[in-house]
């Protein structure tokens, strides 16, 4: 396909939208994914990109302070949580960006297009994009960064993400060897155009390019990141101190639309969420990263504050190690799912601020979500399954959860109560966050949270595909892997949803986890802060913010 032409699937997509067989959001998502500009896609559905219009009238200048944890981000490509990308995104950028509306837009990339078989993606960079220190941003920079991302020494989660379609991984003497599956896998066309030639069809490339680790670092600085580090983003990092604060100053010469604000400051108020609320109350900060459910009433009482809320695909799963007894028996895992009442969990653990989970990790907000009949609760059947598996006398196990997220602790304790009814005695072990992640993947039963991802199949590829790093329960299902490949090669959202339904069913019946809740997220900002939109992954894009006088 020529990049200058409309993708072959676009006319069919427009037809589907006109017949209303797909939703507006599905149309926008898929059309932009196939290379159509967001503005054009919005025009087709009869909308104008509101944010674009609003931006022109925003006041300039000022400082916005946001309460936000400050951790080490010296290696942005090896971050472990989306949360900390807020500290790198002002300076270094990704090729694409997924907005609060779940629509993927060009960012450092100007446009993209794909071949009909979804195995070749042509990505054009913005010709005017440049590094703050003056050099133009080119394909050579992208290739250097892709090679760095797939180097195991970098420790990037992007490696696991790209592995199925871009890499060959082998292991000798316990050492992982990673290489591009083909010498031409990342092909330079010219200074501003490159191609990704994939091993298997993949529809999520533009979305994968927004992974929080996929930021473009400066090869001339060998990827070093910190105060004064070079970047293509609209800000320069001016101050940074772990557990204290990070300050970013506007880069007036930014190649795109310069930021409205002069300065953005993130301040760490420690582990007590009440401190950040008190800071917001006394206007020491203008916004919060997130508001916990139990603190929401206090924030709602503040007259100068606006509360934002969004349904998301944030969740937590109780992971069961499929290589260890009794969890290796699918009947036991199914019994664990059947014993839990998700509606009760939503009420108890998150005060109703969420949606009941369906134990298949595809959320109602995912465009590829396919509703299935509810699974349980059915304690009698769960008990029977345990008896059939040889555990009529019950099971006793330790289950670990991080103290950093109170809602996951409440949820696990609630589930432990429900499990007693079927004879499963789950000892809840609440441990500090720093120690929790050391145990992740090492203990047989652990309750861990997952960030929002725009597509269910992205989550499936990251967590449930056989052998990927984040598949810590070591679950393997050949049919699931096959169907996931199939789903990843389908452009038509309606057709893809049919395959995702099968994937959901497999996870419900055989999957390695219990997933009781979809979490709504909330945050709060001073009403003087303009143009804030709550991103489902809680990303903050400070260049979009402005401050009223």
């Amino acid at each position, binding site marked *: 396909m020529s990049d200058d032409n409309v993708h072959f699937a676009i006319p069919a997509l427009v037809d589907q939208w006109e017949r209303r067989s797909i939703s507006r959001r599905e149309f926008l998502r898929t059309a932009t994914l196939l290379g159509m500009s967001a503005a054009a896609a919005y025009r087709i559905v009869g909308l104008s990109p509101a944010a674009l219009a609003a931006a022109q009238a925003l006041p300039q200048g000022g400082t916005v302070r946001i309460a936000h944890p400050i951790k080490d981000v010296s290696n942005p490509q*090896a971050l472990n949580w989306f949360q900390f990308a807020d500290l790198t995104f002002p300076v270094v950028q990704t090729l694409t960006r997924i907005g609060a509306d779940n629509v993927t837009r060009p960012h450092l990339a100007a446009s993209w297009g794909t071949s009909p078989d979804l195995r070749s993606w042509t990505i054009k960079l913005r010709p005017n994009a440049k590094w703050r220190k003056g050099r133009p941003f080119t394909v050579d920079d992208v290739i250097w960064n892709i090679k760095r991302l797939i180097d*195991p020494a970098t*420790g990037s989660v992007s490696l696991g993400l790209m592995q199925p379609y871009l890499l060959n991984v082998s292991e000798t003497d*316990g050492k992982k060897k990673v290489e591009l599956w083909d010498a031409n896998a990342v092909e330079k066309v010219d200074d501003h155009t490159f191609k990704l030639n994939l091993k298997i069809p993949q529809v999520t490339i533009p979305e994968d390019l927004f992974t929080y680790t996929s930021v473009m670092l400066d090869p001339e600085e060998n990827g070093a990141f910190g105060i004064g580090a070079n970047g293509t983003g609209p800000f320069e990092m001016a101050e940074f101190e772990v557990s204290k604060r990070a300050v970013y100053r506007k880069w007036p010469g930014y190649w795109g639309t310069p930021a409205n604000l002069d300065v953005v400051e993130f301040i760490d*108020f420690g582990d*007590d969420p009440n401190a950040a609320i008190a800071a917001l109350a006394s206007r*020491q900060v203008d916004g919060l990263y997130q508001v916990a459910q139990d603190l929401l009433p206090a924030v709602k009482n503040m007259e100068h504050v606006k509360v934002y809320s969004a349904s998301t695909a944030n969740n937590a799963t109780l992971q069961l190690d499929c290589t260890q007894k009794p969890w290796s028996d699918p009947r036991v895992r199914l019994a664990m799912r059947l014993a839990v009442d998700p509606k009760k969990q939503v009420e108890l653990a998150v005060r109703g601020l969420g949606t009941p989970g369906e134990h298949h990790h595809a959320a109602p907000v995912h465009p590829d979500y396919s509703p299935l009949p509810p699974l349980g609760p059915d304690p009698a059947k769960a008990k029977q399954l345990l008896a059939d598996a040889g555990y009529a006398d019950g099971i006793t196990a330790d289950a670990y959860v991080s103290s950093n997220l109170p809602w996951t602790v409440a949820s696990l304790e609630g589930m432990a109560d429900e499990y007693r009814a079927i004879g499963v005695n789950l000892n809840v072990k609440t441990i500090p966050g720093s120690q929790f992640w050391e145990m992740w993947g090492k203990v047989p039963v652990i309750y861990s949270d997952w960030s929002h991802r725009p597509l269910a199949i992205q989550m499936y590829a990251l967590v449930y595909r056989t052998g990927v790093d984040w598949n810590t329960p070591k679950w393997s299902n050949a049919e699931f892997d096959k169907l996931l490949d199939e789903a990843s090669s389908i452009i038509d959202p309606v057709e893809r949803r049919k395959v995702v339904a099968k994937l959901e069913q497999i996870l419900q019946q055989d999957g390695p986890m219990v997933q009781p809740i979809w979490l709504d997220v909330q945050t709060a900002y001073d009403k003087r802060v303009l143009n804030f939109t709550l991103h489902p992954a809680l990303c903050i894009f400070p260049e979009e913010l402005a401050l009223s006088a």
Partner: protein
Amino acid sequence: MVQSCIVVLACTMLVFIATEATPGSVARKLLGPFASAQQVEILTQALGLNDPAYVRYFRWLGTVTGLSSVSIDPQATKNWSLQSLDTRTYFGNFGYSTLYKKPVNKVLWERLANSALLAGVALAVIIPISIAVGVLCGLNRYSLLDRTLSIVCVVTTAIPEFVWGILLITIFVLKLGVLPGTAPLQLSGNWSIAQQLVLPALVLILVDFGYIARMVRSSVIEVANKPYVRTAVLKGLGRTEIVLKHILRNAMIAPLTIILLQINFLISGVVVTEVIFAYPGFGRMLLEAALFGDIAVVQGAAIVSVVLAISTQFLGDIGYRLLNPRMRGA
């Protein structure tokens, strides 16, 4: 002095043993949960974390005392922000903080200074108030004034720090809006550093003054019944002279120990107050480091705390001698 050094050395060993018992690998903490086992192993080797415990203890002791230097393979750590590893050899080099990503000395002394500031503000109010209240109660024992002030002292001391914190934030921040809700010691939201110090200092004052006042009261009552006070009264000395020269001076000997112990408490033990008000103090640093498993910071902070405790006791000894001439020959 020699005894003090032995105490410090014993404490370093105890702290080292205790930190050895904490779960988890230092290299894993540095690299994060998703680093490969290979990466963790490389860094473990580079930091010498596989060496026996006693080797690591003496290596650490050598670094702290300035007898040996830190050596690390820069290639093994090139991606992990250890550029600021303090490899110089000097007395008091506590090593590198895995949590704060900088030499321990750059965090520890700053946090200690912050806590000393808060403790200084609190003590400047606590000492005169508690002495005044204690003397008033002691000289008017069982009177209405004594009973009222004693109840106030008991109640304020009995209420935990976190309750005071929430109560004061509710009143002064949420209801009245006259004070900032946190004290990050950064100029933000038009609140000065002095204004930020008010609420955390107030919590410490409320929690602490009643305890010292009760001690002063008991001591004043005891001294007031001594024969030499009765003699002074019979000699016809004025009440002010009796109180200042004969009662207060002798009554302060016992509370002095308590006041000096409060210095230790206010500098290294007010974790709850520091967390509630996001105050960047020594206690909060110690808590964060302990939860993260930042052994270098925990060890450094523990040594500084011990030295602080020994120093205040040393000051106490000097104070006793000044207040009680009979002890000068002891």
